[in-house]
Structures are given as C-alpha cells and as structure tokens.
C-alpha cells in the first residue's frame, strides 16, 4: 500500500535539526569542532590570519593574547598537535596549561564535564581538546560554554589538521592565494590512502576539500575503507586500486594504520603493504609530480617507505611547520571571535 498521508523524506519537525553542513557552533563563534563549523569565508580569514601572524614580529605577536589563559586538555598522546597548539598559544602571549589523562584527576574518574568546568573556574578562556571519543568536543562546549578547538576526537574529525593540510597544498598548487572559493581547487585530485575508517584526518579533509572544488579519492582495502564512505559528502569517491588512484592525483595523502582503534579487525600487513604502500617506484611511475603528504606519526616501511618520507616529493615536515601558523590563527580567533576584533 502506498504511503498516502505520510510525507516521504520530510518530516518538518520542530525544533528541526539544521541540515546545512556548514554552520558555526551554536554556543561559541570561535569554536571549531568540525570543518563544518567553518564557511569558506571563515576558512579564508583563518588562512589570511595565519600568514599575518607568521610574518609578524614575535614581540608584537606576543602582545595579542598577553596573559590570557588557554587550556590544553589531552586524553590521548600527541606530539605534533599538542606541541604546535602550545607553541601557537604561547607565541601569542597566552598562558597555557596542559592537562593530560595520565597526570590529572581524570585518572581518578573525573568526568569530562567536571574537568572542563574546573578549567573554566581556573580562568581558562578556551580549551583545546583531544579525546578518544567521537563528539567529545560537543559535550565539553555544551557544558562549559567556552570556545573549544577540536584537536582530534576519536574517529571523527581533526579540523586544524585539515586546515594546515590545505595551507600546505595551497602553498604549492596555488601560491599566494589565501581567499578560497568553491573553485580554488578545481582540477585538483587528492588521493587519501590507508586507514580511512579510523582516521579523523581523512574525515576532516574529505569534508573540507571538495567544498573548494577538489575531488577526493579514498583508497584502501574494504576493512579500512567501507563503501559508504563515498556517501559521507559530495565530491568523494572510493577507488580500491592504488595505482589508479595515484595516476589521477596531484596530492597523495597517506595515513597510518591505527592499530589502537582496530578493535579486533584482522589485517594482513604484508598484503596491505603490497597493495597500498607508497614507494619511490610507484611515485615515479604514476605520480611523479604529486605532493606526498602525511599527517604523522608516520610508520616508515608500512604505509610509506623511508625513502618517500625523506624524498623530494614529501611535504611531511612542511605540514608540521604550517601547523603552528594555522593554530595561532585558530587560538586567536577562539579568544577574539566574540568580540569580533581580529585586526592587523
């Protein structure tokens, strides 16, 4: 029997969840929980601000957030992200404090809500959070009402990584461009390869880059790349054949296999390497001009060879470098977005 009275597809419920992918956080304008919080205008502002801050005299820069308080709350280990957020905040003059799960009351069973409220009571004006559970930044923001920067949540997102990856790509593919539009990356194909399923870097990149006109090809074996990934957003395709993916791409982004999140998944590493390891020979044969990227930490000899990591096409350390500038922009924006005062 056909459904006559009930509307298919649309139930205009109240209060309706916003369906637009891009919308700022409802609690704090300076929060970045997902790349979905950022319009292309906001991305452009962040890119411009990153460049401005990078060029600025360090002593002048350190006056921008002098003595303001930023908390780094890290429930997972991190080298690059933590250090660069810390350097970024300190470079702007802010006082930072690091709370990590192994040296705090988190060990005693304190909840994320209570830890967040405690940090706020100690004067934190923004919290940078890394957490093993997808969506944890939403909880922290809802409960503390502070600006929250997502420094990686579970298998969900890592927006600052996607922004620094974008800045790295633009520096090579669109030098000088900071104002991005829906066409900025037209004609550019990015192959994200490896453990897509567990990767927050992959999700942030696949949701951000197509909005600038890029094509994103996801590549990996079915255990690490479910077919539904192609439906995560527009402009995303799945390609199982690494060579075919390489041959189409101007950027090759390799990902680490996240052993800590495999949850019983069996993976034959030799088979994986045979199918998806990035080698000098593959690069030379199929993507001799492509930019080789990796969010780190890399596992040499697994997802890519040491020669590729150290080779001329590798931008891995450049990515790390761009991270500080992007994170300065994000921290500054987090503490000033409400006042709407981010000027030169």
């Amino acid at each position, binding site marked *: *029997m056909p*459904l*006559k*009275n*009930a*509307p*298919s*597809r649309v*139930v205009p*419920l*109240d*209060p309706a*969840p916003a*369906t637009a992918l891009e919308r700022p956080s409802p609690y704090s304008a300076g929060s970045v929980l997902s790349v979905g919080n950022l319009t292309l205008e906001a991305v452009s502002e962040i890119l411009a601000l990153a460049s401005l801050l990078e060029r600025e005299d360090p002593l002048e820069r350190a006056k921008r957030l002098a003595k303001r308080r930023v908390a780094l709350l890290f429930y997972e280990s991190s080298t690059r992200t933590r250090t660069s957020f810390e350097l970024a905040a300190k470079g702007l003059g802010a006082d930072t404090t690091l709370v990590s799960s192994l040296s705090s009351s988190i060990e005693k069973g304190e*909840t*994320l*809500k209570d830890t967040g409220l405690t940090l706020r009571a100690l004067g934190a004006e923004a919290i940078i959070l890394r*957490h093993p*559970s*997808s*969506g*944890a930044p*939403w*909880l922290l923001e809802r*409960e503390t009402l502070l600006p929250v920067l997502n420094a990686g*949540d*579970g*298998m*969900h*997102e890592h927006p600052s990584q996607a922004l620094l990856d974008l800045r790295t790509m633009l520096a090579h593919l669109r030098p000088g461009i900071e104002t991005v539009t829906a066409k900025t990356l037209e004609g550019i194909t990015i192959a994200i390869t490896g453990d897509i399923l567990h990767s*927050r870097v992959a*999700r942030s990149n696949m*949701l951000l880059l197509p909005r600038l006109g890029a094509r994103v090809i996801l590549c990996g074996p079915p255990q690490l790349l*479910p077919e*539904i*990934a192609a*439906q*995560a*957003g527009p402009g995303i395709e799945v390609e199982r054949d690494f060579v075919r993916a390489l041959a189409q791409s101007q950027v090759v982004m390799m990902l680490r296999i996240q052993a800590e999140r495999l*949850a019983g998944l069996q993976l034959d590493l030799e088979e994986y390497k045979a199918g998806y390891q990035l080698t000098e020979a593959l690069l030379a044969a199929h993507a001799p001009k492509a930019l080789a990227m990796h969010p780190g930490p890399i596992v040499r000899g697994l997802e890519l060879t040491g020669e590729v990591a150290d080779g001329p096409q590798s931008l891995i350390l450049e990515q790390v470098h761009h991270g500080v500038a992007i994170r300065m922009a994000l921290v500054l924006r987090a503490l000033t977005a409400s006042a709407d005062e981010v000027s030169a």
Partner: protein
Amino acid sequence: MSTILVRGGHLIDPAAGVDALKDVVLKDGRVVDIAAPGRAKVDPDAEIIDAKGLTVAPGLVDIHVHLREPGQGHKETIATGTAAAAAGGFTSVAAMPNTVPTNDSPEITRWMQAPERGASVRVFPIGAATRALKGEVLNDYAALKAAGVVAVTDDGNPILKDSIMREVLINATRNGLSVIQHAEDTRMTGGCSMNAGPTAFRLGLRGMPPEAEYGLVERDIRLVAEISREVSGHKVAHLHVAHTSTAQAVAAVRQARRNGLRVTCEVAPHHFLLTEEHVRDYNTHAKMNPPLRSVADRDAMIQGILDGVVDAIATDHAPHASHEKEVEFERAPNGITGLESALGLSLRWLHHEWKMPLGRVLSLLSAQPAALLGLKGRGTLAVGSFADVVIFDPKAEWVFQAKDSRSKSKNTPFDGWTMQGKVRWTIREGRVVYKANMAQS
C-alpha cells in the same frame, strides 16, 4: 468508592465501536453506564466531571516502560514513573524486568505490585525470560505468571541462542504468556552507538547494522512457525517484537501475519518521528537502542502504523539521571523518557498531520496493546470494564517542557516540541490520578 459522572464528553472507545457524545458513569472502579448525554442515572452525591468539548477515551496502555525499581531509584521509582504515566494519560503500564536485581522471581513481581510502591497507575510486571537476562537458563514461568507477570522478555538484551529462544517460546506458550523479543544480534553491535550508514561514518561512530534487528526478527519468526507445529492443542505461540525500528523487521512481521502466525510489533514515537540525523551534535538524548534509523526506516514505521501492521505505540520509557547522560556520546546509556509525550506526539503527527482517524490512534495506544498482552477489562470503556479513563482536549496545542516532567529523569529529545491534545484528567480504576492544573495553561 464514590461515583464519578463524566458528563458531556465525546467518547471514543474503538474496541466497543463507540464514537459519539456520551455520559460515562464510573462506580466502584468499574464502568457502570454509558448513556446518551443527560440520560445517565447517578447517585446525587456523584462527583461530576464536565467533559464538554473534550474527548473521553479508555485510559492509555503502555506495554513497554522501564520503571527502574527495584534497584535504580536514582533514575526513576515506580511512584515517579507511574505519576509520569498518569500525566501522559496512561492508566496501565507494563514494566520491563531489567531492574537490579532483574525480575526473575515471583517475589520481585509481587514487590513491584505492592501498594507500598505508591503506583498511580496499574503496573503489569513483565518477567525475565532467562535468569539475569543472560539468555541461558529459563525462569519458572508458571510461578511468574501466578505472581502476575503478563509476558516474558530479556529486554535490553536479546535471547540470542536458537535453542534457548525455542525453549522460551515453547514454555511461554504452555503457560499462556507472550514472548517479547528485544531483537538485536549483539554479535553485530559491539561498541556501536548509532545506526550504521553514511551518517555514522561521517560522525566517526560505530554503527549497528539494520540486519542486527531484522535478522533476529526473521529467526524468531522461523522458530514460531516451527514450534506452532509442535505445541499441541489450542495454545498459540505469541511473539511480540519490541521497539521495531527497521523497514525489514516490519516487513517480516507483515509476512508472518500473512502466514497465519501470531506475531505482533510495537513502534516507539521516536522511531516514527526522528532519524539518525538527530545524532549530528552528539546529543545523548538521541541515543537509544535500537538506534534512530534512516529516513527510509522512519517512513516505514509511519507506513506500518497507518496501514495496520504495527499493533501498538509503546514508549520504551527509559529514564536516566542527568549525570549519566552528560557524558561522551559513546559512553552514554541508551534510552529516553516517553510517557508524557507519547499522546501529544501521536495526536500531533499521526492524527493532525497525517490524518489518521483519532479512534485508530487511540486504539494503538490502548485497545490494541491491552489486547496484545491479554489485559482483560483494559483498553475499553464498555460497561463492566475497569474505570480507566483519559479525558483530553483534542484541539489544545501545548509545548512540552522536560523540566516540568513528573518523571524523575528529564532525558527526552522532545523538550520544547509542540504537542497536540492536552490531558485534563486521568482516572485509574475510578480514582482521579492526574488532573491538569488549568491555571498554568
């Protein structure tokens, strides 16, 4: 006990085929007269309820609630849960056995029904199908039934093993009890916190595949067909599928019925209204089990309700304390409250928006669930029935506020939603157990 005359209301009693202006007389806990307006003979000292402009219907029956007692009084007590039920127009609720300890025994079954619990509405305990809900060892169904259970289930957990489910069905049927299955193949749902699909992928959450539900429903239906040939005589096995959420599960129930099997199902308001998209901000009030599904599944629930495959609307009222829900999405417990929003949502959406006749909506909330669990004298206001009545203003629109809920817990995704149909009086066995404070509205 005094007499109550409900005067001048529009009586809708689908089971009795009544849909007209009637006076209803309640005495000694029973319905004693249904008469044309002004024609009822009553004692001069009868309490009179003026129901002019209001709908009078059989008290609602929710066959799926978690009252949390014994053992989890910080979430809900039988007193608070049934107070919420009364405010929502319910006069009977069937209480799930996943309490602490689980309701494995006649002692707990009796304890739940004892007057000391302070229940506003009638509580029908459902017994644990297997000891401690582990799906291994069957409880004593004859003893449970004698103590008052109306069905058996391991709700919260499935009865996974074929051999055990078979034994449960056979034993329950011999004892005249329905078997309620929480259909979730937990071998496919470990570590999962929402529906599987593109949304779960995008949100970085592990997803429960729809197969985990409908695969078990299909397995159970096969078992019902098999044992129907084995259990002799006039006893017919009855399988009831709890909180149905997938299109394929509804299709399997539809097919089983065509094949002459006694298989029924219920749908919760959140499964005919919400979808997995509501998880997008990791709101833990959008986390329940079964999870919110796809748009196609949600539409299949609506269709199943409209075309009659769905036998009942049941809330799966699952209170949790605020601190339990204010945690990371993956760590939050499953479930939402539902007793005070079920009627308002059903009337607003099924009746008002989707034009389902009012009598049919009320039937899904009273006559059909009562019949499904064999609750005699409930779900109808025919003379001689229990004096269980809900009187509501069918046209009133109001906004549901979680903070005003009578439930001990406020974990509802419907906070701030517009409802239709305001309950004015709830009468259980001839006693007013809820009366709206009209000064507020």
